């Protein structure tokens, strides 16, 4: 049956046009119940014996998605009109709903009511779109009831009063979510319910719990029409809000329209916006532009917020953001302050679920009653969230997840609802889980579909693999691998032979992951989503299933494995004469650890072939490294720490700095060379769709903190180029051995991180990798643990003509989105790794209060930040207590980066060594933190 839809639409140019679309109504859309005699039940999803089938309204989906995700709710019919409405209103809820619908364990059925002959409804004159859609839902519910007859009850779940009333009039069973959930008799589900907004009359009693009853705290958000016209006229600016990780009262909006970041101070100026929201900002008058207010370490509002001890940041992206500080005692200098603004409206919310715990509170009298509690997110960027719960006693000492529902003008905090419990606070597994959730890392086991893509196990190289013409047999070569001790996912191996003409043949062999992971398979999709393996202190979350990472792909010793090899001919001066790429079969002769390899090289008595190869390679690597440094590659330093974990309790036994040996540098050098060679090769073949990695040159502003520090201690750093910086870093040798490393750590912190990108998106000069001082770079050498390398393997295979280029590469947009996802996952994996180290540091010091040496790295008005080299952590040391904050006993000398006592008796300057005491304290129950005090 054919039917034409016609509607009017406003075009971009502002013209109003009539659009006519065909709309085919069908009779082959089935109801999805397996017992139905009329319909084809092959695609049925609902359960056989369901006594009730739920038809959900759009508002239920939008507000109660957490409830729908709970497996207690099943046999749900999702109408296509509901899906469409949800899609228009909230894309993330739509994606979640789609995920439930496609999950084969859940009994959710999508009924395309809009295309069904009997359930399509035509808009009546004078009827609004919304009313029409509500009617469509009712018609579909009615159809279901008639279609299934009396055996099954069809229940329309709606929170729209009008819809419910009309449904009852038309003889459809309808209930609100609340009454439906109550009828299930599951109190835990009730917590998942979103409370109706506080304007609702029946919830009035809730307000009594609030101290600020009916007081308007925030200014109103402007209506969308006003925001649009304001943006158009240039009085408002649009951008994504980013809250300072270290000070939740300070946020930034990167605005394209003024080409600068707008700073937003304080919760009232932030006006209920969350981190990640797209907001409209109005600039404050220039005389209200504040200079740097966050001179002190502590947040300025009346909440208990203070700095925790953190791992030392590794790059500018993780470091707390500081703008140049003015004046010594808060004299603001209007000329150099940055634009400040306030938020007038929120264009797009970025609400999701947050991990944290409830603020400790006394138990209310009635134990079974409803209690209101404040939830404190673990991530300090988010405000506290008010939730309602019936199981307060269970939740108080738990880590829980909470999602935000609304934030009205009268409440200081947003209101939300409980989603699920993760575990007990302080428990290592719980806290690790929190780390994973906070960083959006999927640690679920691999699904059956993914595991079905694995090759049959036990796997070994077959004659088929050998007979493929492009796969070269390199089993006769003496290949070996050098990795950290205990490494199971060995993805690289090396060989080095002296050629008769005096040159060397050097080969880098990388696990041939793409021989097992084919594009478009569930395995590939999963890997592409995960993006990278995540290394926590006590566990590893793999990107690929374990049989692949630890066995089939891992280049273990004495077994034949498939590899993708890069083979160079090099002169003894380490100049590359020729490069060859081939898929191969290798048999590793030895899997060495860095320590072993180093010991072999150092032991002059050993003359066995592997050791000779190692020495040859090391001398080549040294030359390559020297050349790279001459080109201006930076030797950056980070304070990586290493734990010794008790094998039984998994508690940390010892921490120390990660030691870097020559053998590490040797392997690194060849990996870098392989990556560079591969980058050149793939870019030559696919100039528009290669996946490369770049490291942007830091701007002057980014290096500002480093320059201020170096000026204060009388060190002259030249930052005009990476070469100049590298040279002046080499010259920066202070009185003690750690000085140079400290300066390097500070320098590293000023730089942004390297990112993946699609070569078609940028122009060739932008491909530059600043840190490595190479015009091209990519990742090729770790396909077992990074998805970027898998992509690069496919590109390389296509460029040497042994396989076809998968279709993803035809679509630049898709490739860009893959690169973005990889960057996101990569960053999250790093954050998770750091958070895990922080967690274990805390566990370690819980039983071991320690006195140690620390270096001052940042001066604040009431104290300073110290860096503890031995443990790689950084944290605040207060000179004044909170009570006497700002009493003026201390003042900061900005020029010399010193904090002095007023009477001049005592002063601390930057990079000075101080003795500190480290101890875990619990200012509040269940909230341990590491405290540093001066001794």
């Amino acid at each position, binding site marked *: 049956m054919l039917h034409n839809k016609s509607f009017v639409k406003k075009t971009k140019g502002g013209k109003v046009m009539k659009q006519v*679309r065909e*709309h085919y109504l069908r009779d082959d859309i089935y109801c999805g119940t397996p017992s139905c005699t009329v319909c084809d039940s092959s695609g049925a999803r609902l359960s056989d014996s369901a006594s009730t089938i739920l038809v959900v309204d759009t508002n239920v989906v939008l507000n109660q998605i957490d409830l729908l995700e709970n497996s207690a709710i099943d046999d749900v019919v999702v109408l296509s009109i509901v899906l469409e409405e949800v899609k228009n209103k909230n894309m993330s809820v739509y994606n979640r709903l789609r995920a439930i619908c496609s999950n084969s364990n859940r009994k959710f059925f*999508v009924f395309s009511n809009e295309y069904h002959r009997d359930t399509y409804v035509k808009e009546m004159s004078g009827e609004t779109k919304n009313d029409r859609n509500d009617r469509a839902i009712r018609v579909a519910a009615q159809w279901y009831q008639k279609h299934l007859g009396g055996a099954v009850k069809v229940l329309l779940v709606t929170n729209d009063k009008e819809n419910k009333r009309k449904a009852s009039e038309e003889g459809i069973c309808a209930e609100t979510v609340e009454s439906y959930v109550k009828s299930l008799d599951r109190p835990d589900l009730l917590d998942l319910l979103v409370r109706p907004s506080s304007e609702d009359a029946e919830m009035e009693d809730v307000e009594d719990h609030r101290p600020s009853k009916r007081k308007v705290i925030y200014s109103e958000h402007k209506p969308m029409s006003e925001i649009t016209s304001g943006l158009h006229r240039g009085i408002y600016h649009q951008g994504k809000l980013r809250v300072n990780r270290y000070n939740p009262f300070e946020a930034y909006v990167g605005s394209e329209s003024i080409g600068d970041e707008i700073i937003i101070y304080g919760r009232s100026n932030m006006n209920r916006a969350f981190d990640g929201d797209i907001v409209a900002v109005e600039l404050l008058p220039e005389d209200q532009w504040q200079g740097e207010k966050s001179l002190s370490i502590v947040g300025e509002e009346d909440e208990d917020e203070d700095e925790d001890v953190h791992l030392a940041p590794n790059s500018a992206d993780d470091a707390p953001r500081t703008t140049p500080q003015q004046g010594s005692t808060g004299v603001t200098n209007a000329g150099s302050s940055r634009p400040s603004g306030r938020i007038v409206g929120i264009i797009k919310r970025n609400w999701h679920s947050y991990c944290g715990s409830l603020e400790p509170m006394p138990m209310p009298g009635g134990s079974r009653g409803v209690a209101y509690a404040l939830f404190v997110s673990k991530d300090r960027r988010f405000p506290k969230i008010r939730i309602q719960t019936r199981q307060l006693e269970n939740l108080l000492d738990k880590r829980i997840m909470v999602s935000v529902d609304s934030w009205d003008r009268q409440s200081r905090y947003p209101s939300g609802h409980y989603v699920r419990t993760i575990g007990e606070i302080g428990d290592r597994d719980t806290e690790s889980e929190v780390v994973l959730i906070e960083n959006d890392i999927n640690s679920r086991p691999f699904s059956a579909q993914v595991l079905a893509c694995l090759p049959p196990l036990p796997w070994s190289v077959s004659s088929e693999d050998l007979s493929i013409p492009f796969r070269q047999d390199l089993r006769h070569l003496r290949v070996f691998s050098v990795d950290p001790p205990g490494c199971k996912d060995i993805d690289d191996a090396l060989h080095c032979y002296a050629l008769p003409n005096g040159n060397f043949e050097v080969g880098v062999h990388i696990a041939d992951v793409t021989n097992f992971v084919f594009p478009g398979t569930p395995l590939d999709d999963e890997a592409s989503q995960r993006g990278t393996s995540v290394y926590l202190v006590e566990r590893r979350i793999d990107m690929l299933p374990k049989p692949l990472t630890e066995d089939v792909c891992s280049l273990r010793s004495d077994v034949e494995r498939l590899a993708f090899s890069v083979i160079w001919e090099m002169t003894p001066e380490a100049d590359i004469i020729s490069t060859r790429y081939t898929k191969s079969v290798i048999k590793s002769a030895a899997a060495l650890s860095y320590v072993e390899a180093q010991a072999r090289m150092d032991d002059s008595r050993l003359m066995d072939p592997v050791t000779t190869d190692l020495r040859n390679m090391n001398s080549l690597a040294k030359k390559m490294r020297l050349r790279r440094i001459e080109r201006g590659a930076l030797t950056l330093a980070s304070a990586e720490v290493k734990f010794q974990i008790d094998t039984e309790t998994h508690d940390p036994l010892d921490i120390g700095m990660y030691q870097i040996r020559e053998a590490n540098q040797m392997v690194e050098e060849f990996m870098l060379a392989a990556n560079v060679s591969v980058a050149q090769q793939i870019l030559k073949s696919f100039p528009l769709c290669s996946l490369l990695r770049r490291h942007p040159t830091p701007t002057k502003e980014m290096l500002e903190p480093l320059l201020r520090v170096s000026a204060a201690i009388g060190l002259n750093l030249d930052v005009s180029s990476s070469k100049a910086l590298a040279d002046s870093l080499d010259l920066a040798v202070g009185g003690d051995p750690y000085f140079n490393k400290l300066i390097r750590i500070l320098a590293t912190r000023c730089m942004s991180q390297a990112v993946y990108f699609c070569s078609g998106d940028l122009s060739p000069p932008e491909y530059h990798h600043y840190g490595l001082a190479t015009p091209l770079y990519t990742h090729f050498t770790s396909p077992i643990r990074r998805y970027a390398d898998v992509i690069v393997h496919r590109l390389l295979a296509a460029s040497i003509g042994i396989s*076809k280029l998968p*279709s993803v590469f*035809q679509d630049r947009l898709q490739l860009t989105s893959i690169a973005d996802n990889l960057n996101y996952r990569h960053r999250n994996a790093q954050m998770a790794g750091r958070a895990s180290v922080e967690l274990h540091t805390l566990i370690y010091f819980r039983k071991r209060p320690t006195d140690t040496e620390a270096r001052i790295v940042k001066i604040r008005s009431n104290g300073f930040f110290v860096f503890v080299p031995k443990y790689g952590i950084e944290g605040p040391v207060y000179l004044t207590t909170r009570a006497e904050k700002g009493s003026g006993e201390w003042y900061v000398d900005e020029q010399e980066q010193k904090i002095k006592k007023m009477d001049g008796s005592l002063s601390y300057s930057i990079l000075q060594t101080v003795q500190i005491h480290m101890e875990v304290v619990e200012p509040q129950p269940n909230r341990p933190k590491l405290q540093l005090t001066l001794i």
Partner: protein
Amino acid sequence: MEYVSPEGLRLDGRRPMEMRQIRAEIGAVSKADGSAVFEMGNTKVIAAVYGPREVQNRSQQLSDQALVRCEYSMANFSTGDRMRKPKGDRRSIEISLVIRQTMEECILTHLMPRSQIDIYVQVLQADGGTRSACINAATLALADAGIPMRDLVTSCSAGYLNSTPLLDLNYVEDSAGGPDITVGILPKLDKVTLLQMDSKLPIDILENVMQLATEGCKAIANYIREILLENTKELEYRRGS
């Protein structure tokens, strides 16, 4: 954007392998020697054929075969916004050429030397797939005019969106910017006379999509044959024999 829902329905309610509703009518322009209206969903095209007749411009006359000319145009009201379209813009010249070459291939031009055949096609309503619709209309009009042909030429388009081959793209799907293949075939001879593609597509998928378009062409050919048969029967009936 999602052009095919996980339930397997397209934006207009069709399934990927389904064509839009087609309708054809012969004899829409009584002055012409042959004419037809052809509709594919909301795309509506009218074609009129004049000839074989004397060549108007003597210098173009061919001594061994007939001269085939084709003019394609879009009515001002054919799209949503009513605007004056300049004649002979790049797009219409291209489509005119495509239609002419396709039709020339099936007309037995060597039977009619020193004569001229004019094909005029005009789009009355455009909703994607106008090229195919024009070719189908022209075939019907040529048949109506009684011009000797090797076979009918029919055409259909197919595309590839959301990793699914789609038959007979409408305007919304057409403007998605994905690959879009127009195929013209001689159904009885099983030969391809027209193959055009926008954007790019891996070769193995191209084969699938092209196969789908060819199936579409065959379905259209069956329908056209039915219409012609019906028309002939009616003519027969009118003659009263």
